[in-house]
């Protein structure tokens, strides 16, 4: 009981701190409106170019390995939402791998009375990500009339649950790869590599060979950020695997991220100047 109460206290405190950080970030954002606008348009454009590619592809074929254009767009749109949420809230991990550790700025976090990982995660709000989120929601909404899905309250709920948990698959993979910088000073390219595997999940996993399919299911489990939850929503098949395992994988990945981060802290030596 005491542990539960102290855990609740810990989480409550983190939520309060997060709110304070976000308020600070919003002040910064209002100050530099034009810059944030440009970043947002940048990310919108990246998505538009991918969609143009899909459109050009579907001009020459009716279906992609049995998937229709609206279905492919649905999976694509779904993938943008957890990716966008992670990008919006926890983008600061990139900075850990690229400059914070290698320039000796990490010492700052060690002197604060907040958990270092929480501090790093909460510190920045990356508003560029709104471009991805808007696009994801718009894509899903735009194909809704063209896909035949039996909607129910439970299905919508499970869809939202898997969106929430798959966000932490992204954050977990980023935390794991960013932690490498505690040993190696820089890890931005390792983060990039880990993150690039997410590219595989923009499209239906059936277009890949068995090796890639197993890789993105069991090793770097990005297939759970979009493909498996989308399959459940589109077909209603196997919620236990498609949604249940998504939740499980998310907890596992984020949990090991937290553990490796704290192992890394022990190995950390300042690169200070």
């Amino acid at each position, binding site marked *: 009981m005491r542990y539960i109460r102290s855990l609740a206290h810990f989480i409550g405190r983190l939520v309060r701190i997060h709110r304070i950080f976000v308020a600070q970030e919003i002040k910064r954002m209002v100050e*530099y409106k*034009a*810059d*944030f606008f*440009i*970043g*947002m*348009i*940048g*990310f919108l*454009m*990246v998505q538009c*170019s*991918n969609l*143009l*590619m899909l459109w*050009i*592809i579907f*001009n*020459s*074929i*009716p*279906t*992609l*390995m*049995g998937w229709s254009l609206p279905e492919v767009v649905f999976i694509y749109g779904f993938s943008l939402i957890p990716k966008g949420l992670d990008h919006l809230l926890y983008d600061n991990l990139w900075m850990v791998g690229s400059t914070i550790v290698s320039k000796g700025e990490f010492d700052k976090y060690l002197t604060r009375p907040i958990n270092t990982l929480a501090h790093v995660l909460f510190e920045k709000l990356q508003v*560029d990500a709104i471009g991805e989120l808007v696009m994801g929601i718009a894509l899903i909404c735009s194909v809704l009339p063209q896909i035949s899905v039996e909607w129910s309250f439970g299905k919508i709920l499970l869809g939202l649950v898997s969106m929430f948990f798959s966000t932490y698959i992204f954050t977990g993979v980023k935390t794991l790869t960013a932690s490498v910088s505690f040993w*190696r000073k*820089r*890890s*931005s*390219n*390792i983060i*990039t*590599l880990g993150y*690039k*595997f997410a*590219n*595989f999940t*923009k*499209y239906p996993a059936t*277009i*890949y*060979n068995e090796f*890639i399919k197993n890789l993105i299911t069991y090793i770097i489990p990005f297939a759970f950020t979009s493909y498996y939850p989308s399959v459940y929503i589109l077909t209603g098949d196997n919620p236990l695997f498609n949604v249940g395992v998504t939740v499980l994988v998310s907890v596992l990945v984020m949990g090991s991220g937290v553990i490796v981060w704290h192992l890394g802290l022990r190995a950390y030596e300042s690169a200070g100047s």
Partner: protein
Amino acid sequence: MKRRFRIYYPFVNAGMQQVTTYRVDWIFYLLGNVVHSLVSFFIWQAVFLSGSEETLNGFTMPQMIVYFFLIFISDTMITSDASMMIAEEVRDGSIAMRMLRPVGYNATFLFFELGGKLLTQIVLIVPVVIGVEISRFVLSGVVQFSVLNLLLFFVSTILAYLINLFFSICFGFLAFVIKHIWGTNIMKNCIVSFCSGAMVPLSFMPDALKTVFMLLPFASLNYTPVMIYMGVYQGADLLFYFGLQIFWALFFWALSKLLAMVSAKHLTVQGG
């Protein structure tokens, strides 16, 4: 010439040393690009497996494999960090130091990146070309490899890199006007990647668009080198597209010189 070599050799060396010091980073960067090209490979394979026709817009399946893996080489080759380096230096003021040095402003970027590029090319070209040619032989049963085309491809990617480098330098000077160069850089990369044929071969695009992209510097960055490797351009065409590449490289070189001069006049650095 000898004097120049002595001045710029340390930059080439520093570029190579950066790659060898942060080896692991570099290997992961290359692997990241491999992942990227595998995604393209699988999606286009799925396109051919889903369609009933043998050729799509002039491409057969083996040609498509050659196309996307060669795009991977050219795309890795032409990448330049110059715009972000300039933006960072404008932000923290160290651009003043670079401008004070008795070396060419553009040239320092060129020679610094050259070191890393050389290593990258040596590591990439051999395995990718061997892999691509073996798969093409297995799929089509004919050896289509041409040493001449490979050499021309190499020359063409160097020209493409120069175009992109000078273009990136011009772009980096935007940091004097726009503070959020990062977001603008994403836009730039996105436009370049789409219009240069790195995502979809230009022959899949509507004719009007294709013509525009071919004449603008975009096609010169990725599409032209790969078409040269595939032996699509011969004779007069080949000369024309090489000429176009040289024209755009000179154009952006001159523009970057001009912008460096103009911005040096307007440069105010705070603190130091």
